């Protein structure tokens, strides 16, 4: 049995990789946890695609403002220095490559960096995409935050996604509860070469991850290990 870190620990790990001064969009769901671990003494500006830069935490009880919500339609606050804008401007920020980082959830990520996170394609399911496709192709760095394995034990890192795609070749890094994976692009090679294990959590080994994912993972973890 391999070690897994908790959602909060993973959120803390992702937050540590976001430099001061970054403009960041945290996707709906688990990625919103990352906000809880951004250092308070640093200025990192959160974007929410419904029209706010400088998003702050949830309001105090009794101070909920229905006009001030995030992309998940939850009440939020606006920090000093915040700015409001309309939807076309907001998506220009995303599509136009102005965001430094976005963190998204995933059903699957392929070795080429394809992302599937909006639909399982199940018959009868009501489709809903929101801003997922714009975020996936727009930010300078697209990070995925996910468990490595599905509830059934299948790998979410795959050779090819079978779920409907959100974006093609768009993911730069995948943070999982077992390890951190980079989608690599070998120098002049345009096509990414698959996943490289960047960092292992706990007692996980690259061999074990190869067995869990069925993928030929590149071991790039040695240089980042402390021991």
């Amino acid at each position, binding site marked *: 049995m391999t070690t897994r870190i908790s959602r909060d620990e993973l959120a803390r790990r992702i937050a540590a990789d976001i430099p001061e001064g970054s403009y960041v969009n945290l996707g709906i769901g688990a990625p919103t946890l990352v906000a809880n671990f951004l250092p308070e003494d640093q200025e990192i500006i959160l974007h*929410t*695609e*419904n*029209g*706010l830069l400088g998003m702050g935490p949830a*309001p105090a009880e*009794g*101070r*909920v*403002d*229905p*006009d*001030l*919500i995030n992309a998940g*339609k*939850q*009440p939020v606050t*606006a920090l000093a220095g915040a700015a*409001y*804008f*309309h*939807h*076309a401007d*907001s*998506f220009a920020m*995303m*599509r136009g490559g102005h965001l430094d980082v976005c963190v998204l959830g995933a059903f699957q990520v392929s070795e080429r960096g*394809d992302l599937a996170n909006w639909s399982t394609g199940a018959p*009868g399911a*009501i*489709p*809903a*995409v*929101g*801003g*997922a*496709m*714009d975020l996936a*192709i*727009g930010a300078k760095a697209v990070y995925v935050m996910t468990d490595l394995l599905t509830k059934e034990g299948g790998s979410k890192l795959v050779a090819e996604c079978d779920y*409907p*795609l*959100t*974006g*093609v070749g768009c993911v730069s890094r995948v943070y999982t509860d077992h390890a951190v994976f980079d989608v690599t692009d070998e120098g002049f090679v345009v096509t990414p070469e698959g996943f490289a294990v960047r960092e292992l959590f706990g007692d996980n080994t690259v061999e074990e991850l190869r067995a869990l994912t069925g993928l030929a993972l590149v071991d790039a973890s040695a240089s980042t290990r402390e021991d």
Partner: protein
Amino acid sequence: MIDKTVASVADAVAGIPHGATVMIGGFGRAGQPVELIDALIDSGAGDLTIVSNNAGNGDVGLARLLKERRVRRILCSFPRQHDSWVFDELYRAGEIELELVPQGNLAERIRAAGAGIGAFFSPTGVGTVLAEGKEERVIDGRRYVLEYPIRADVALVSALKADRWGNLVYRETARNFGPVMASAATTTIVQVDEIVELGALDPEAVATPGIFVDRVVAVGSRPWVVDGEFVGGVDVEGRPLGSQEASA
């Protein structure tokens, strides 16, 4: 003298015909022009095509328009929500058509209509099922799909304040689709909390210039804003805390 103000929401929505394409502003409940939608329902118009980011929440506003079976087709990015039971039921029963559009393409297609753009190439959705059948082009080494503008006969928008020329200021994230929708419809109808004297709006703060607006109606204050001050005391749906209907 230009005076775009009208006395009632019934006057504001007068003349919207059966079969019209209607843009409805708002993101979830924020900025949703509920009073105008109620008046549209009362007007009897039906067989509508709706353009809106979501497909209704709870049983009010857009959800009620759907529930009253006035909508044949809806273009939106995110119909499925925890409180979208009205849409869910109609969709599962095959009683409403859905065109799903990625949110940024929805906003930009509306913007393009208002800006007189014939079509544009977007990188969003490339290689996905939502781009199937669309013309694709590689520009500077990147793949794009061709997207066409979305126009409407009518836009229903909610803003905070207007003057009689139709200049609008919004409040916080309730601005969302208002400015682009206002530009993309033949007739733009706006509900506001308050109509103020010409000159009372700071020209630097006007987010929708009156040229995009045809009719304005005052519907009264949001309970969470009193004399321009945020007072809170409501839940995210705008219901007073501790009231019978307030959600848990």
